[in-house]
């Protein structure tokens, strides 16, 4: 072929052929061949991140349990000390009683106070349990929402992979299969991000629960203090300490 002939041949080459060769062969050319390996890589990446999330959840749960145990231990320790202190007051009052009536009055006061302490502590324990139960529900609810979003994400990926595999088996052009597959993966990712964005934070709800519990504790405290003072007033009269 002469130089002129070569130039004419190039000039007459179809433009559509040039367009086809502009698609990177390394990307779509072997797409169907390496689809299985790509699926394995996707599954592996997903598993790794979900495992990390699960480990973090376990760590968070352990931290929360540890904090609660610390609060519980503090309450138990303080209550034991208050029991000791209260008994010292009872003993001092008993020494002031010089008649059988006065002794009986001190005994009544003691039983009344012990009953009030029992009620007070039960009320506070109940408020704390209610708070913790609701807090656990908030955490679990949020985790369920996240789990659903991730499960949907996995289903979308799996569906995309099946569709791509079927298309490859049907002889569809690999670049077409790849374009569809990549688009489906992008949609799945977008749907996941959107779903996670709709999961509400629990911070304000936890604080609201804490406020409710604090109000219950304060009410119990007021009731306890008022009842102890009333019992004390009765005892003062009996012991002539007015």
């Amino acid at each position, binding site marked *: 072929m002469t130089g002129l002939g070569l130039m004419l041949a190039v000039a007459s080459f179809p433009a559509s052929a040039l367009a086809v060769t502009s698609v990177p062969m390394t990307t779509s050319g072997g797409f169907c061949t390496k689809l299985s390996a790509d699926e394995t890589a996707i599954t592996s990446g997903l598993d790794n991140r979900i495992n*990390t*999330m699960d480990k973090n959840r376990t760590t*968070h749960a352990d931290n929360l349990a540890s904090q609660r145990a610390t609060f519980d231990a503090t309450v138990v320790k*303080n209550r034991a000390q208050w029991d000791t202190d209260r008994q010292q007051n009872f003993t*001092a009052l008993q020494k002031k009683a010089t008649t059988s009536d006065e002794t009986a009055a001190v005994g009544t006061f003691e039983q009344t106070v012990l009953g009030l*302490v029992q009620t007070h502590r039960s009320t506070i324990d109940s408020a704390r349990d209610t708070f913790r139960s609701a807090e656990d529900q908030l955490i679990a609810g949020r985790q369920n929402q*996240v789990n659903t979003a991730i499960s949907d994400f996995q289903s979308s990926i799996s569906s995309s992979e099946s569709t791509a595999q079927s298309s490859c088996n049907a002889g569809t052009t690999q670049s077409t299969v790849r374009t569809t597959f990549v688009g489906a993966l992008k949609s799945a990712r977008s749907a996941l991000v959107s779903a996670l964005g709709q999961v509400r934070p629990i911070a304000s709800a936890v604080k609201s629960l804490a406020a409710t519990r604090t109000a219950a504790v*304060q009410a119990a405290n007021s009731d*306890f203090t008022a009842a102890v003072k009333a019992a004390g007033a009765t005892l003062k009269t009996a012991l002539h300490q007015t």
Partner: protein
Amino acid sequence: MGNHPLVKKIMKDQRGTAMVLELLLVAVVVLAVGAALIARNNAASTTGPAPQAKNSSKLSTAPTGSVDNAVDAISQETAGDQTAASEEGAVVPQTDLSTGSAQNVETSYNENNF
């Protein structure tokens, strides 16, 4: 010449002056040492260890047998439970969203690599 009355008077005056000066010097030294000791004590009191927190559940006063005293002491029991209760919930528990664990799932793959 040393027995001259005028010379004797001058020597006597010099010894008296010297004694006064010695006494003043001793007084200055004593005052300086005292001031240094006071300054050191003041410094020690401001850099000493912080006071230890009292156990809130311990009786502040010994039981006297007074009903008012007993009622006041028993009423203080409420403070401890309220403190323990209010501490819990002040820190919101971490979640997989607050730590980014869930969001990381979206980076499982890069579709542009396929």
